[in-house]
C-alpha cells in the first residue's frame, strides 16, 4: 500500500501520540458503553474519537486505518442516533476493530501500517448495520478470494500496485426490493470503469448481461481517484442503498503480527503517561493546566536530582565535620548555614521530583475492565470488576512493573477462584461474581488488593499438588498447618489447575508473581476463606529510584540495606551467639533467630568465624514483613556506618543477576556500594534453619 511519503517524523510522532490516546479512550469507553448503553454523552465521546481518528489517519494517508475507523464511525453514528441499540454483538465488533487498529498502529513506528486484512472487521461492522447485506457480504468474502486467486487477476492487481495505483474493494448494495438489480449493477459498473480499471467484479460483466445478479455488486477497482470521488457517483445510481470503498489490502496476510503486538503495549505506558498527564483524557478529566514532557527528559532530570541527593548528604557531612573542628571561624559557620539550606532545598526538590514521577494507579487499572470482560467471555463466567482508589499515586517505575503480576492475579481469580454458575447458585451466591481491585496508601507504601467472592483456595488440593510435585512428603503435607499449606501456592509449578492461556509468554505461575513483586522491594500475601473468596495483598514501595538505607561494613566492603526491612540494630557480644543443630543463631532478649554474616551470605565463601570473648558483635535484625509468618533474621556485620537516602543505580546487564545483590549505589564520596537483596537472604537463612530442623527430625526418627 503506498501512501504519501512526505510525512515528517514529527508529524508521525504527533499523530501516534494522538492516536494512542484516542485508542485508549475508545478501549475504556466502549467497555463502559456496555454497561451504560443510554449514556448519550459517552456515545458522543466515542463517536467523536472515531471520527477524529478517521480524519487524522486519512490525512496522513493511512488508508487501512481510515477505512476501518470509517466503518466504525458508520456503526457508531447509527447507535448514537438511536437507530441501533447497544448490544454485546456491537461491542464485540467494535472491540475487534479496535484491536485491528492497534495492530495497524504497531507498524506505524516503522512508518507504514502493518499488513492486516481489515475486510472481515469491516464486514462484521457492516453486517450489524445492514443484516440483509450480511449474507451477501459473507458469501462475497470467499468469492472475492477465489476470484483473486486466479492468476490473471493477481497479475493485474500487482501491475496496478507496481504502477502506484491504489486498489480498492468496492461494495455496492442494491435495494432488495428493486426489480432492476441487473440494470443497477450495470450502471454502477459503468460509473467505475469511467474512473479507473475494474480488475474483477462479482457478478462479472458477463453475468450482469445475463441478468445473473444478486443484490450486491463487488469489484476490485484500481484508480488514482479518492474514495469519495469513487463512491459519490455510485450512490446516485437509483436503488443503491449503500456503498463502501475500502482499500484492498491483499488476500494474503491476515496474520496479525503477534510480535508487533508487543510493541504498542510497551510503548503505550510511556506515551500514556505523557498523554494522560496532559489531561487530554477527554471530558472525564477536569480541564487541567498541564504540559507534555518527553519521558527521556524526565528521566534525565531525575538522574540529576539523584546526583544532588548524593552530594547533599556529603556536603552535610563535611560541613558538620568542619564545624566541629573550626567552630570559631566565621566562614566555616557561614558554610554550615548555607549547606544546611542547600540540604533543605535539595530535600524539597527530591520530594517534588518524586511527585512528578508519580502517576495515578488508575492509569494501570483502566486496562483491566477490558481484561475482565474478555476473560469473562472466554471462561463463560459472569464477572464484574470493581475498582477503588484509582487516584492513588505510584511511581512510574513501579507502575510499569506491577502490570504483569496484577494481570496474572486477576486471571487467577477468574479462572480458578470464581466458581461455575451452578456451583454459585447452589451456594446461594449472586450469579455475577465480583472481583475487586483496590489501591491505597499506607505509611510510605502503596497497598493493592485483589479480592474475589469465589470459592477460595482449596487447601487440600494444594497439599495434594505439593506431594505430587515432590515438594513435600505425604506426612509433611499432612502435618503442616493450613496457613503454611496456603503458602505453598507460591512454589513453582504448583498450580492445582494449570490452564495455559495466552499470557505474555513470560511464564505462568504464582512464583513468578511473587518474584516480580519482590524484585520491586515489595511483598505479596494471600488469604482465603473456603466458599467465600480469596484476597491477594501487594505491598509496594512508593518509588524504586531511592530508598532510606542503612550503611554497614562487612569484611572490608560497604553494603546498603533498605530500612524497610530493618527491625532494629543491635550491639551485643559473643554471649548472644550460639549454634543450634549446626546453624548459627542469635539469642536476642530470649528470641532465638537464625544468624548469618553478611559478607559470607552474599559471596558464599568462607566459613563463619565464631566471635571471641568480649568482641562486640553488631547485628541488623531484619524481617521480610510484619505478618505473623515473618520471622526475624540477624545479620552480623563488622560495623554499622550510617543511615542515609540511597540512590539506586543499576549494575547493568553485563554482570547479569547476582544473587543476594539488588543493585548498587554511589555514596557522597564516590564509593560504590552494593545494595543487599534482603528478602533473598532472609529466605536462605530461614530455609537453612528449616532444613536443619528437618534433618534433625529425620535423624531422630
Amino acid at each position, binding site marked *: 500500500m503506498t501512501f504519501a511519503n512526505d510525512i515528517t517524523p514529527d508529524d508521525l510522532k504527533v499523530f501516534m501520540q494522538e492516536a494512542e490516546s484516542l485508542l485508549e479512550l475508545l478501549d475504556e469507553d466502549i467497555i463502559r458503553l456496555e454497561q451504560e448503553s443510554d449514556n448519550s454523552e459517552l456515545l458522543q465521546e466515542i463517536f467523536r474519537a472515531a471520527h477524529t481518528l478517521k480524519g487524522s489517519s486519512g490525512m496522513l494517508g493511512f488508508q487501512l486505518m481510515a477505512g476501518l475507523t470509517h466503518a466504525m464511525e458508520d456503526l457508531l453514528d447509527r447507535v448514537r442516533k438511536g437507530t441501533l441499540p447497544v448490544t454485546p454483538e456491537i461491542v464485540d465488533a467494535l472491540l475487534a476493530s479496535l484491536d485491528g487498529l492497534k495492530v495497524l498502529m504497531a507498524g506505524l513506528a516503522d512508518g507504514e501500517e502493518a499488513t492486516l486484512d481489515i475486510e472481515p472487521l469491516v464486514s462484521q461492522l457492516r453486517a450489524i448495520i445492514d443484516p440483509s447485506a450480511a449474507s451477501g457480504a459473507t458469501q462475497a468474502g470467499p468469492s472475492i478470494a477465489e476470484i483473486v486467486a486466479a492468476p490473471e487477476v493477481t497479475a493485474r492487481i500487482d501491475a496496478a500496485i507496481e504502477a502506484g495505483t491504489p486498489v480498492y474493494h468496492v461494495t455496492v448494495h442494491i435495494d432488495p426490493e428493486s426489480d432492476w438489480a441487473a440494470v443497477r449493477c450495470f450502471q454502477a459498473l459503468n460509473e467505475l470503469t469511467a474512473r479507473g480499471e475494474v480488475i474483477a467484479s462479482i457478478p462479472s460483466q458477463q453475468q450482469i448481461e445475463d441478468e445473473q445478479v444478486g443484490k450486491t455488486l463487488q469489484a476490485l477497482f484500481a484508480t488514482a481517484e479518492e474514495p469519495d470521488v469513487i463512491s459519490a457517483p455510485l450512490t446516485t445510481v437509483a436503488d443503491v442503498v449503500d456503498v463502501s470503498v475500502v482499500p484492498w489490502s491483499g488476500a494474503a496476510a491476515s496474520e496479525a503480527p503477534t510480535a508487533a503486538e508487543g510493541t504498542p503495549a510497551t510503548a503505550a505506558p510511556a506515551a500514556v503517561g505523557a498523554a494522560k498527564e496532559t489531561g487530554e483524557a477527554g471530558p472525564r478529566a477536569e480541564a487541567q493546566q498541564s504540559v507534555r514532557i518527553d519521558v527521556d527528559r524526565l528521566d534525565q532530570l531525575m538522574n540529576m536530582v539523584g546526583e544532588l541527593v548524593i552530594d547533599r548528604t556529603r556536603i552535610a557531612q563535611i560541613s558538620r565535620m568542619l564545624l566541629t573542628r573550626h567552630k570559631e571561624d566565621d566562614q566555616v559557620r557561614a558554610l554550615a548555614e548555607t549547606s544546611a539550606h542547600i540540604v533543605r532545598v535539595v530535600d524539597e526538590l527530591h520530594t517534588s521530583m518524586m511527585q512528578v514521577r508519580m502517576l495515578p494507579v488508575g492509569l494501570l487499572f483502566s486496562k483491566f475492565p477490558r481484561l475482565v470482560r474478555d476473560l469473562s467471555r472466554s471462561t463463560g463466567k459472569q464477572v464484574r470488576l470493581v475498582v477503588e482508589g484509582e487516584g492513588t499515586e505510584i511511581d512510574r517505575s513501579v507502575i510499569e512493573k506491577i502490570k504483569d503480576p496484577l494481570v496474572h492475579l486477576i486471571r487467577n481469580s477468574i479462572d480458578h477462584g470464581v466458581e461455575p454458575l451452578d456451583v454459585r447458585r447452589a451456594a446461594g451466591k449472586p450469579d455475577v461474581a465480583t472481583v475487586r481491585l483496590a489501591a491505597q496508601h499506607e505509611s510510605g507504601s502503596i497497598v493493592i488488593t485483589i479480592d474475589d467472592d469465589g470459592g477460595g483456595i482449596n487447601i487440600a488440593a494444594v497439599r495434594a499438588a505439593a506431594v505430587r510435585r515432590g515438594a513435600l512428603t505425604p506426612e509433611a503435607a499432612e502435618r503442616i498447618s493450613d496457613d503454611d499449606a496456603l503458602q505453598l501456592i507460591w512454589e513453582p509449578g504448583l498450580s492445582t489447575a494449570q490452564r495455559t492461556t495466552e499470557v505474555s509468554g513470560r511464564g505462568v505461575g504464582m512464583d513468578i508473581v511473587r518474584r516480580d513483586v519482590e524484585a520491586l522491594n515489595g511483598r505479596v500475601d494471600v488469604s482465603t476463606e473456603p466458599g467465600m473468596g480469596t484476597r491477594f495483598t501487594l505491598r509496594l514501595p512508593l518509588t524504586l529510584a531511592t530508598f532510606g538505607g542503612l550503611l554497614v561494613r562487612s569484611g572490608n566492603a560497604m553494603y546498603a540495606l533498605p530500612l524497610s526491612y530493618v527491625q532494629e540494630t543491635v550491639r551485643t557480644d559473643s554471649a548472644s551467639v550460639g549454634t543450634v543443630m549446626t546453624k548459627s543463631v542469635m539469642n536476642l532478649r530470649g528470641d532465638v533467630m537464625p544468624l548469618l554474616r553478611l559478607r559470607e551470605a552474599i559471596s558464599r565463601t568462607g566459613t563463619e568465624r565464631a566471635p571471641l570473648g568480649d568482641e562486640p558483635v553488631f547485628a541488623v535484625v531484619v524481617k521480610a514483613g510484619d505478618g505473623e509468618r515473618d520471622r526475624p533474621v540477624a545479620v552480623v556485620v563488622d560495623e554499622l556506618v550510617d543511615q542515609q537516602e540511597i540512590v539506586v543505580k543499576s*549494575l547493568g546487564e553485563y554482570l547479569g543477576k547476582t544473587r543476594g545483590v539488588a543493585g548498587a549505589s554511589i555514596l557522597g564520596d564516590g564509593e560504590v556500594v552494593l545494595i543487599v537483596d534482603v528478602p533473598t537472604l532472609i529466605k536462605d537463612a530461614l530455609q537453612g534453619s528449616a532444613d536443619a530442623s528437618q534433618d534433625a527430625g529425620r535423624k531422630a526418627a
Partner: protein
Amino acid sequence: MADEAERQLVVFDLAGEAYGVNIGTVREIIRMQAVTHVPETPDFVEGVINLRGRVIPVVDLRKRFGLETSEHTSDSRIVVVDIAGHDIGVIVDAVTEVLRVAGASIESASALITTEDSYYMDGIAKIGDRLLILLDLDRVLQLTSDQLAAQSVAA
C-alpha cells in the same frame, strides 16, 4: 581481516605486549581507582566503579587472558569501551599512544597465529619492527556460555 582503510588505534601495554584497539570503541581512559567487588561474577570481572554517577563493570584483562597478575601501578589505566551499547572498563598496565595504521600493514590474525586465540584478534599490525596485536574487544569481553549458565543459576 586485512582491509585497505586506515585505522586509528589506542595502544596499551599488557604484561610486556603491546595491544591495539579501534579508537572508535574507546569512550575514555581514566586512572585506576577503587573497584567494588561484586560476588559471584567470573574471576576476571574485578567489580564495578563509579564513572561520573554511573556504575560500570570493570574487567582485568590480565586475568581475562590468563596472564600472571601483578600490582597496579601509577601507570595502570582503565580503558572504558563501548560494547554493544554498554560501557565496560578494561584494566591495562599502561596506555602508550594513539596511532594511525595503514590497512596494508595489517595482517589477518589467523594467517599468523594458529591457536584459538586468533578468535579474539582483529589482526596483527606491523609498525616498523614491532608487532601490534589488534584486539576484537567485542569478542574478548563477550560472556562465555559457561558464564551465562552460571548467571542463570545464580538468578
